[in-house]
């Protein structure tokens, strides 16, 4: 394979992976938009949703039923989070809510491991290794379809939150809890809706990534991949999540190949997105599509 095709393949692989990063980042964006807090537990929710789904299938449930049951579990989690964590902390500074989500992470991970065990599980949806070729490019069908499905989900969510009353209510809640309440926006309902949607997104991420890596605890670590995506795309923008994902995916794969081919160095694809994010913070701290930060002084 000559170098040109090598970089082309790295770019395609990176874009496909980037779409999947954006899926995880999307869960963060939804909750950040609704509560102004970075949900540290999003990775744990991906793990919980993925493991619940595959474990229910192992118990004999049809995938569709397992999916519905998992959605019910994630909605139940959303209700519990709203009642036990968010409601008592209304109008508290964002850092308090952030700390609460750190605690939530351990509870979600621990509960999931207690119920379903620590053994990794197989999730094969179709043939995960069948591929097609374009020139010297080699593209795995499952990753290609997953990228299309994720892109469709992102577009649907972007429309839902931009063109509906819930979307406007959501932005108001994110801006100021008290003000939103004073104009009659049902804060608690909005939170439950958003956390439920984030739970569904976590389920999709769990299935897509679980099919790629197996369903195991490491799904919780996907949150680390989402952070640079958020910094690049902006914490409040759904289109930003997908653009940020593509940038991170393509950037890290090209960097890995370049560093290895040119300098004989490897293992850079994990820190490279953070380097990109750091540089980006210096010139545009709100991200590509984030809301401009205006502070009264």
């Amino acid at each position, binding site marked *: 394979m000559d170098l040109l095709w090598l970089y082309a393949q790295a770019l395609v692989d990176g874009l496909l992976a980037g779409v999947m990063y954006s899926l995880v980042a999307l869960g963060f964006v939804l909750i950040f938009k609704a509560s102004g807090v970075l949900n540290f537990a999003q990775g744990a929710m991906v793990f919980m949703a993925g493991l619940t789904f595959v474990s229910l299938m192992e118990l004999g449930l049809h995938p569709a039923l397992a999916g519905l049951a998992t959605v019910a579990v994630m909605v139940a989690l959303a209700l519990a989070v709203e009642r036990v964590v968010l409601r008592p902390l209304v109008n508290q500074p964002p850092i308090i809510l952030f700390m609460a989500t750190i605690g939530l992470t351990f509870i979600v991970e621990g509960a999931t491991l207690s119920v379903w065990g620590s*053994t*990794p599980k*197989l999730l*094969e949806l179709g043939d995960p290794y069948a591929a097609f070729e374009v020139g010297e490019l080699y593209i795995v069908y499952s990753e290609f379809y997953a990228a299309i499905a994720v892109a469709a989900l992102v577009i649907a969510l972007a429309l839902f939150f931009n063109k509906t009353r819930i979307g406007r209510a959501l932005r108001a809640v994110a801006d100021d809890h008290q003000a939103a309440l004073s104009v009659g926006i049902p804060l608690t309902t909005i939170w439950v809706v958003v956390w439920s949607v984030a739970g569904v997104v976590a389920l999709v991420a769990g299935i897509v990534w679980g099919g790629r*890596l*197996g369903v*195991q605890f490491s799904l919780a670590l996907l949150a680390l991949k989402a952070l640079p995506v958020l910094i690049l795309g902006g914490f409040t923008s759904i289109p930003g999540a997908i653009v940020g994902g593509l940038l991170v995916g393509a950037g890290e794969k090209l960097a890995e190949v370049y560093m290895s081919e040119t300098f004989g160095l490897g*293992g850079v694809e994990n820190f490279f997105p953070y380097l990109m994010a750091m540089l980006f913070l210096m010139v545009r701290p709100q991200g590509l599509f984030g809301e401009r930060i205006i502070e009264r002084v």
Partner: protein
Amino acid sequence: MNSGKRLVAGGAILLAALAVSLPAAADELFVPMPIYRTGPYAAGGSGIGGGTEDYFAMLNARDGGINGIPIAWEECETAYQPDRMVECYERQKNEGTKGATVINPLGTGLTYAILERAAQDKIPLLTLGYGRTDATDGSVFPYAFPMVVNYWSQATAMVEYIAQESGGKDKLKGLKIARIYHDSAYGKETEFLWDEMAEMYGFEIRHFPVAHPGLDQKATWLQIARRFKPDWVISRGFGVMCSTTVMEAARAQFPRERLLGIWWCGSEEDAIPAGSAAVGYRTTTFHAPGSDFPVIDEIVKYVHDRGNGNVERDRVGSIYYNRGVLQGIIIAEAMRKAMEKFGVGALSGEQVQWGMEHLDFTLGRIQELGAEGLMPPIKTSCYDHEGGGLVKVQEWDGAKWKIITPDWIKPDHDLVRAEIEKSAAKYAAEKGITPRDCSAEN
């Protein structure tokens, strides 16, 4: 009576009641159990720890412990974090009749975190298939035991296996071997030895690092399979990195029969998530998989059938579980040896260290323990804390691991020993340690 007097009186009554109800402390053999049942490596921690605990529970139920002295253990969750390992160590080292007898940190990084403390406190560390390789030299590291095989022996045994598959050592010349490794001290540890062997035998080696945790290896495999095009790939990872390597190999259409993992990439938990991609995948091992051994039958009978299992029953006989059972067998035998010398009763860490340096698992002894076929012969000494260094290769058939090398593969002892002594001598010089004279030990 005022409230202060009532409080004092109540406390006195409570203390008196406790003094009456608590029996005098009986002798026990205390084994701290640092474990990780949470976090990304929970499958390994719970499997190995659970296997060891089940073995101890079986000995207690069947024999009353070792020569009638019960084994006591207490879990401490490390979550595979070195700082927590130190906390667990400090909390547990003085528990039991005579303190901790032996500790299994269950991780190379965790071992490094307490290596010097344990030597100072005279508590032996048993590091089964991990840990500090040069601790094989017991003259410098009296309290560390990297049994049954250390990482360097494994690397040389892998080359021996590749030579066997290729038709002899002379066929190694011209082969291309890629080594994909966890980008950490653990992953890099054997790099120099592979380079040395590449020079010795004339094969080409390239090392490909993968950043922790190893979730994404596409770009790395792009270079391995499409550019370097090796004859063999060596996988040195842990946790999710191992199964991801197998899946990426499949996506890159690299034959799994030529993907050779180390034993930390050779559990069911590494193969199952990869599904059909793992069929044909091979790894090294230093014990057998499966439950078809008398010792496992005894564990099921005395522990699981009574509802006292320390791990899910369907994991009995898995790789991690059997590794835990082997760990239990070695500890128990070291305690027996120590009692032969120091008398039947509670043991200190220092006494168990003596037992660990005088292990002799002959085939006959292994048979007596119900572990024939499960483990290799092991013989330790002050000079050799590894005890044998024998390796087998196993292959995943889609449902289970099966051994594909009937005979144990011997490592290149001469090469490995020379490197161990060099490294241990350097450590001794840095730390101001005067090595023991092993010829004077008995």
